C-alpha cells in the first residue's frame, strides 16, 4: 500500500517547524511523589515550605528516547550578590533513584539558566527545586512522557 502524500512527524503532530522543547504545564504540588523522590525533596526542603513560580522547566512533552531528554531550567532572579539562586536541584519521580543533578550558581552567572540532557526510565514527573540566597525555596514539577518504542524501544 503506497502513500501518495507522506505524513511527517510535524504534519502528524501539527508542531511548528521551528519549535524546540515546550514549557511544560506544572503538575499540582499536592499530587503524591514516590517515597524516594519525596525523601529527596524533603532533604532539600529542610522544613521550608516551597513556593510556586519563578522556575520554568522546558522539556519535550514526549521524549523521543528516554535515554537522552534535553531539559532547560530557568529561574527568575536578578543574580546579584544580595539576591541570587544558590542551588537548583533536579529529581525524577520514578527513576530507579530520584537524584538527577544539583547545579551550584553564583552571582557571576548573571542569569539562572542551565541546560543538560537527562535519562528518564518511564513517563514521570521531573521535579525542580531552586534555593535562593535569602533562604527561600521554590519548586515546580512537570510530566515528561517516555514511551516504549515499537522498534525494540
Amino acid at each position: 500500500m503506497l502513500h501518495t502524500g507522506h505524513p511527517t512527524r510535524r504534519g502528524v503532530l501539527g508542531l511548528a517547524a521551528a519549535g524546540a522543547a515546550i514549557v511544560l504545564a506544572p503538575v499540582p504540588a499536592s499530587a503524591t511523589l514516590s517515597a524516594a523522590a519525596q525523601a529527596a525533596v524533603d532533604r532539600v526542603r529542610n522544613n521550608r515550605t516551597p513556593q510556586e513560580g519563578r522556575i520554568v522547566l522546558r522539556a519535550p512533552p514526549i521524549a523521543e528516547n528516554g535515554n537522552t531528554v534535553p531539559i532547560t531550567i530557568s529561574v527568575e532572579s536578578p543574580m546579584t550578590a544580595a539576591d541570587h539562586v544558590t542551588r537548583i536541584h533536579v529529581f525524577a519521580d520514578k527513576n530507579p533513584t530520584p537524584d538527577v543533578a544539583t547545579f551550584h550558581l553564583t552571582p557571576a552567572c548573571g542569569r539562572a539558566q542551565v541546560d543538560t540532557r537527562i535519562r528518564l526510565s518511564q513517563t514521570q514527573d521531573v521535579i525542580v527545586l531552586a534555593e535562593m540566597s535569602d533562604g527561600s525555596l521554590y519548586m515546580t514539577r512537570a510530566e515528561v512522557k517516555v514511551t516504549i518504542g515499537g522498534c525494540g524501544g
Partner: protein
Amino acid sequence: MASPIGQPRVRLPAQIRAGEVIEIRTLVSHVMETGQRRDQSGAVIPRDIIRRFEAKFEGQTVFAMDLAPAISANPYIAFQFKAERPGRFEFTWTNDAGESRSVTQELKLA
C-alpha cells in the same frame, strides 16, 4: 579501571561585550554507566560516571554541577556567565574514581 573521560569541548560565543551575559556550552565524551545495567552473564555493570563539573574563572568557582547516573551519556552542560572582564576559565570534569580532566579557555572581550 574507570572509563576514560574523553577530550571535552567547550564553546564560548565569538564576540563578547563587557557586561554581557553569555552562554557557555560544554560536551564531553563519557559512557555514564548507571550501575543499573547487567552484562551477558547477568552481573551488574558497576556504576562509573562523571560526578562533578566545575567552572572556575580566574581561580574562583563560578558554577558547578553534581551529576547523578540520570545524566545522559556524553554529558551536555550549558550555563550562563556575566562577562565583566577578560580572564582565564578552567573547566574540570571529575569521575567517581576521583580522576579529573580539565580544559582552559581564555575569555576575551570585544
